[in-house]
């Protein structure tokens, strides 16, 4: 590697400073704040706080409500990840086979990607609206009264559908480009070696797609855990108590609605550890095995 030397010793520091400041102000400081306040209990009327040690954490561990939300979060994350990856894979495999009009087809599938998350949440809410939502109408046609924001299961259903719908295009783009980067000759060699298309997919195509798929797996888990906040916010209609919510949403409701900054901070620290674990796993896995070249 080439080493470049700066004539002024302060120059590199000056160049790095803006980036470091941004990271410090927007990442390290809030993270530190969260860790710090997770050891304090806030006075309900905002008149100060008392050091309580690990109380906030033990309270979390014992809370049956927290366990319920955590349970739903796991369920929600698994379902959203599996459905959005699975559907996108199916679409990508089909799109990869299209020869005529391939461009148009792909563009149409990618459109949703261009929609901003709040707009997607809003559109989703419209689709499930009590009075004018076409999906609600569809269910009504089959004799089921879909009640988003009122019925726990119905809300969970709508959250999952909208979250999956929003994530499919990203997955689709990555999976399709992953498919297309598999050398044609390798597929042709497989065509000669194996008659069954399904077996060819699982023996050759899928393993070659694995690096992309693994990257997407982590991205999707992160998405389901954190980036679905907007969708959930719209679906629960300001009534989080009787509706399914995820851990991230609970941080928000407990902290800002419930005024329990200490407990809410402890929850965010738990989430930070989770993200850290995911990231380490991703780096570990990417370095190892799932790389062929």
């Amino acid at each position, binding site marked *: 590697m080439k080493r470049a030397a700066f004539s002024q010793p302060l120059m590199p520091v000056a160049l790095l400073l803006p980036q470091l400041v941004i990271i410090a102000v927007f990442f390290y400081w809030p993270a530190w704040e969260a860790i710090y306040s997770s050891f304090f209990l806030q006075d309900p009327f905002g008149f100060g706080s008392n050091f309580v040690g690990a109380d906030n954490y033990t309270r979390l561990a014992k809370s049956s409500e927290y366990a319920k939300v955590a349970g739903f979060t796991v369920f929600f994350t698994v379902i959203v990840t599996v459905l959005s990856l699975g559907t996108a894979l199916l679409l990508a495999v089909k799109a990869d086979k299209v020869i005529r009009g391939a461009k148009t087809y792909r563009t149409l599938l990618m459109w949703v990607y261009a929609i901003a998350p709040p707009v997607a949440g809003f559109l989703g809410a419209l689709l499930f609206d009590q009075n004018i939502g076409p999906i609600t109408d569809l269910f009504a046609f089959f004799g089921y009264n879909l009640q988003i924001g009122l019925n726990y299961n119905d809300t969970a259903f709508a959250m999952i559908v909208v979250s999956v719908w929003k994530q499919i295009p990203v997955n689709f783009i990555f999976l399709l480009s992953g498919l297309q980067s598999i050398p044609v000759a390798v597929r042709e060699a497989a065509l000669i070696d*194996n008659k069954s298309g399904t077996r060819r997919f699982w023996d050759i195509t899928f393993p*070659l797609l694995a690096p992309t798929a693994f990257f997407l797996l982590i991205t999707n888990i992160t998405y389901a855990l954190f980036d679905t906040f907007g969708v959930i916010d719209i679906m629960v209609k300001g009534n989080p108590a009787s509706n399914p919510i995820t851990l991230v949403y609970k941080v928000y409701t407990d902290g800002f609605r419930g005024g329990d900054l200490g407990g809410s901070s402890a929850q965010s620290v738990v989430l930070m550890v989770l993200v850290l674990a995911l990231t380490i796993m991703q780096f570990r896995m990417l370095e190892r095995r799932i790389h062929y070249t």
Partner: protein
Amino acid sequence: MATVNVTDISKTYPNGAQAVHPASFDIADGELIVLVGPSGCGKSTLLRMVAGLEDITTGDLHIGARLVNNLDPAERDIAMVFQNYALYPHMSVAKNMAYGLKNRGASKEQIAAKVSEAAEMLSLTALLDRRPSQLSGGQRQRVAMGRAIVRDPALFLFDEPLSNLDAKLRHQMRVEIRNLQRRLNVTAMYVTHDQVEAMTMADRIFVLNAGRIEQIGTPSEIYRKPASTFVASFMGAPPMNLLLAQSVGGQVQIGGVALGLSCADGDVTVGIRPEQVAVTQGGTIPFKLTLVEELGASRLLHGTVAGQDFVVNAPNDDAALADDLMLDFAPDALHLFDAQTGQRL
């Protein structure tokens, strides 16, 4: 082991490009056919139609006694070696070789036996557990060969399998492939644009030009009796000299000098190979020398005869050369072609 019978096979791509014009030929059992021609002449297309990787637009293709037009590649009992080897990057060398057998229902013992036999043949035994990315180009080439061999197919197909190797390795693999094919006695079609490969490996050469088969013949037939000016100038290095000449009173002349050949009056193309020309004082054809290229064993004399470009491949005797030389050649070393169509007369 099988014969291949091709009847009026042609290919038109969906965009309307006709890559292969109707062609018919038969390949004998155990024969090695080399398809040769310039880039874009349709060699790969023809081979891929045989493999089943490209639809056959018209015509019939029989491998063995079976009509295989509508069979999947996996059902045609063929094995193919690709230019970029096309190994499965996530599988070990052994798994790469075993994959095709496994899918054909071979038992574990059969597969193990076949793979180790092929590995032995190709000196791959020590590499069986490696991934393709851990192999050199030559070794990958061998694995690709191994993958084809273990299958014991009716027909081997090769699409420029050596073009990514350096000259020395290419020579070595050329001999190796030829020996293997002989030993296993498997019918083979081999695509290349390297005429040395074509001459040295083929039982018969098919010379393709713009989607048409210009000539089918043994290497020596192709060299000695090229069917057209295209074949004459494509096969042979340096290529055959082609001179525009006139036939007057039944005698072919260049620059007023009779060559001792006769044909109907009018324009005619005369071909002569650079290595069949002698530079002698007693020659009859004047040659203006412009450039000498040293090749070691011989040298190439570039110049003109009757104002037309001409190359002589002369023995390298270190003699100083004058600018004006006289050339001599035996009349039976000359080839006559129609000046318009380029067809052999």
